[in-house]
């Protein structure tokens, strides 16, 4: 198939070394901002198809952790292995990982000088070397999936926040990633728009995508997460199923956090 040629490794959900291999492995990862120790001995493993929600108070290092997974931040110690490839200073490995890892940001970060369609086709055309026509068809199929195909020729500033975030999800999906990272995707949205974005994410979760999602939306976590990671002060404090985390917190720190966010709701 021509598609398989254009997108190396795409069909190989099982590659490079078998289905049992975890999608992401973090092994004693440490990071400092100056003298501040922001990630302390983070070790965890995320299986393929697993949906992980990362929560914790602000400044707990959860954003920093997922930004290390595609090296928007550099970790200083430890090992990060994504899809069987270790993240190092090797740019080729980094390129390969970024191709397979999509990311959605709190501030959407759509490219304001490009139309919605161009936002979605840019990376497939330039990174995957996909023919423009094919990339446009792909983009339209994802825009239909996030239910905004009619906005394809508008510019980002003409869309609402919720629509922009759905475009950002479609843009990341156009690279057909194996893993999707969400960095507080609903935190910058007006309350009435949060639901449309969460609905899109729930639909995505149902397709079996590996997802790592930093969010405060506990309803979302209960509904779709296989596993919740609670972080505080740069450490993973607890990890468990949503039921374990929300109904049976073991540490005082998690109990305190849960009582605070529940009071807020």
């Amino acid at each position, binding site marked *: 198939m021509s598609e398989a040629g254009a997108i190396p490794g795409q069909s190989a959900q099982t590659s490079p070394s078998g289905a049992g291999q975890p999608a992401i492995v973090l092994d004693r990862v440490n990071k400092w901002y100056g003298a501040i120790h922001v990630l302390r001995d983070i070790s965890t493993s995320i299986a393929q198809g697993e949906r992980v929600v990362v929560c914790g108070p602000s400044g707990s290092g959860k954003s920093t952790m997922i930004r290390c997974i595609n090296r928007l931040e550099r970790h200083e110690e430890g090992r990060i292995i994504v899809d069987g490839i270790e993240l190092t200073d090797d740019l080729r490995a980094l390129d390969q990982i970024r191709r397979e890892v999509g990311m959605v*940001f709190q501030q959407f970060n759509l490219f304001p*000088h490009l139309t919605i369609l161009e936002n979605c086709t*840019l990376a497939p055309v330039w990174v995957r070397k996909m023919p423009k026509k094919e990339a446009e068809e792909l983009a339209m199929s994802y825009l239909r999936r996030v239910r905004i195909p009619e906005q394809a020729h508008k510019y980002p500033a*003409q869309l609402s926040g919720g629509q922009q975030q759905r475009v950002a999800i479609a843009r990341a999906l156009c690279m057909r990633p194996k893993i999707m990272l969400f960095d507080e995707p609903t935190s910058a949205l007006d309350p009435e728009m949060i639901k*449309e974005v969460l609905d899109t994410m729930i639909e995505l979760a149902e397709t079996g995508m590996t997802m790592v999602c930093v969010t405060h939306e506990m309803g979302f976590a209960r509904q779709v997460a296989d596993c919740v990671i609670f972080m505080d002060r740069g450490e993973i404090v607890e990890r468990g199923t949503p039921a374990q985390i929300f109904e049976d917190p073991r540490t005082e720190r998690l109990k305190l956090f849960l009582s605070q966010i529940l009071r807020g709701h």
Partner: protein
Amino acid sequence: MKSAQIDPVPSVAGTTAVGAVARERPPAAVLGPWPWIRRNLFASWWSTAITLALGYVLARWAVAFFDWAFVNAVWSVPYNAEGVPDTASCRTAKGIGACWAVIGDRFRFILFGRYTYDQQWRPAVCVVLFLALYGISALRQFWRRELLLIWLVVLAIIGILMWGGVFGLPYVPQDSWGGLPITLILATFGLAVAFPLSILVALGRRSRNLPAVRALCIGYVELIRGVPLISVLFMASVMFPLFMPEGVNIDKLLRAQIAIILFAAAYLAEVVRGGLQAVPTGQYEAADALGLRYWQKTRLIILPQALRLVIPPLVNTFIGFFKDTSLVLIIGIFDFLSAGKLVLSEPAWQGFSSEVYLILAFVYFCFCYAMARYSRGLEREFGAAKRR
């Protein structure tokens, strides 16, 4: 749209009701010239006084200028047997009327300097080519790869026309070039080369991974910014040949051209850097996360946004350098301004500087104003995409 479906209440309470009373336009502002004049010029007694006083001064000046420039002007002068103009009528009219005869008599010298007289159609064609090149480059439908090719071809043609020596065109040494083509060559080549160079320098100065490149770019910008253009031109024309091996001599115009390029690039680099800094970090991160390489990210995401942000200061610098090319007169290159000055040093036309400078200023103004208008158009066009 989706929001329309999940939102039934406002469609009854809000939309329809508003629709019934909605008007096509907001209430019209008071229109027409008279209300405008009343509001802006005669709103109070002191506003009225200032309007009248300024109006009087302006009217007096306009009438005086009209008398000088048109009514009492001398449009041509007779020539004596040797072909030397007899400027007696101009001298009697001096102070009362303009002597446009100086322009009529010497316009070809002002435009083309000492370029071989009967070959002056060649620089004239060059000027037209330059104008056509600007015109094509200004149109967005021509912003394609082929435009670069057009530029190279046109610049080659201009070189052939100016120098000659091939295709039966007599050779004209660079020393005798002058006038408007010199100004356009220096400004066009200067900015066309300096602009890409400045982008590289700006990127280099922001580079975090290449400290040596970064240091080099900082050193270059600070060094050039720290010295006046005149001294760089002097160095290019006087000192540079001293360091060259015997017998090697680079054309004086080329040396001045390089000096202008290096100088303009340093200034433009700082403007571009300002734009690069104004692009939010999220844009860099989104491009990285999608897997774009450094140059893809820079070319497709960062520069288009950065350059749009800095159109006003960029054009400001362009206009400044267009006029600064006139400084080459101090190293003996006869650009448009110096050709005008040369006319004023001729015995027949000494003392008619107002007329000559007025015309020179008018031509410079036309070029600079065209740039300014064009940049405003660009801003509007790019702004339209960002507005809701």
